[in-house]
């Protein structure tokens, strides 16, 4: 495999790895109401950069799945849809956090035998 092919394959796999943690990351940041762009900024400041084209549809999906609720507000003359985690989302977040910790521990044992 050429170097460029390997780099592209690696990037695609890295993307898949990041996508696996997106829901956990998003739920963890929505205890306070945020709109799409502010959430993107908040995640980016903490080291997790997400494409806007991935984040915004995912927020909608999580709402459809009953984990978030949302409300339109007008701030600085601009309409914004704010999302916030609800009770069902909190339960899911707690479960995902537990599973995440199990995964982290397992990967630590696998990568550092």
């Amino acid at each position, binding site marked *: 495999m050429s170097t*460029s*092919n390997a780099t*592209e*394959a690696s*990037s*695609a796999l890295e993307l898949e790895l990041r996508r696996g943690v997106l829901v956990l990351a998003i739920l963890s940041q929505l205890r306070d109401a945020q*709109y*799409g*762009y502010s959430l993107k900024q908040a995640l980016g400041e903490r080291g997790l950069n997400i*494409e*806007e*084209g*991935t984040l*915004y*549809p*995912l927020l*909608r*999906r999580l709402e*459809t799945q009953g984990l978030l609720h949302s*409300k*339109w*507000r*007008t701030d600085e003359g*601009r*309409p*914004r*849809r704010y999302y916030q985690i609800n009770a069902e989302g909190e339960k899911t977040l707690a479960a995902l956090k537990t599973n995440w910790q199990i995964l982290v521990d397992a990967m630590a044992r696998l990568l550092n035998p």
Partner: protein
Amino acid sequence: MSSHAADQLILRYVHAVGRQLPRAQRADVMAELQSLLHESLEARAAEAGRPVEEALAVDTLREFGPPDMVAHRYMPYGPYLIGPRLYPTFVAVVKTFAIVLGILALLGWTLTVSTSPASEMPARLWASVVSPLQWGLIQLAIIVVVFAIIERVMSQRQMTESPTAKAAKPEWNPRDLPVIDNTNEADRGGLIGSLIVHVVLIAIILGFPTLPALLSPSFYSLVPWWASTAVLDLLVLGVVLVQGRWTRLMRLAEFGASLFGLFVVIQTFRAEPLLLLPGADLGVKIGIGIAFVIALIETGIQLVRLVARPVPADVNMGQHVRAL
């Protein structure tokens, strides 16, 4: 603050995504996307120390992703019978088929109304509507099956596509987005002119003097039908003028009124001579025949417009925004 060109590009993008979304969520998603894209664009401009301009909007949209990919992400999880990639093509094929079928059905219906004796009219009219519908449903099922097969083949191919092949695909260009169709905006001047013409027409029809030596009883029996046609058209035009735009319902009403008008023209053609002047009937029939052809073409155009209508440019995104 943003440039007009940048605003228009974002609007075209938002419409390109919205066109592929289910109607129930379309306006809300479009409103949110538009707000978020403007926010992203302004932040990008501030970071670059440049004013908001089209070039920055192109970069923002390119980074956001092609409209069909973004629309795909808004859909519920698959598997799909016909997925978001193929759906616009499927809709275009169905619309084209519906237009052709509609025009053939319209011609068949016209022929039925023109040639059926009064006693057989209801049964034949019913058959001229039901038969094309039955045939159309069977063809629609075949189209769905064909597209479902294509979706399955394409999905399997994509699953096995290498990252290199995906990366080799040319980057999409936001400047190639389709322009927004504004034909649903009401042409107020034209509407007012049409309204005046219709009012004058109704006044003439209803105020026509009684001339028993010139006009036959057949003529006077048709007056209420002509008046009804003009009143129906007047109502449709009036509602559109008040609303300021054509909605799907008003396009349907316009088409319904035109069908009724066609029916009246055909009955007028089939009626006994309208004028009692010797030799005048031929000229009257020719005139009615010309009116019939014009009415038929106009009804056909309305049918095409009704079926081929894309998402209206004036999707009311603002109604989903509620101020605190």
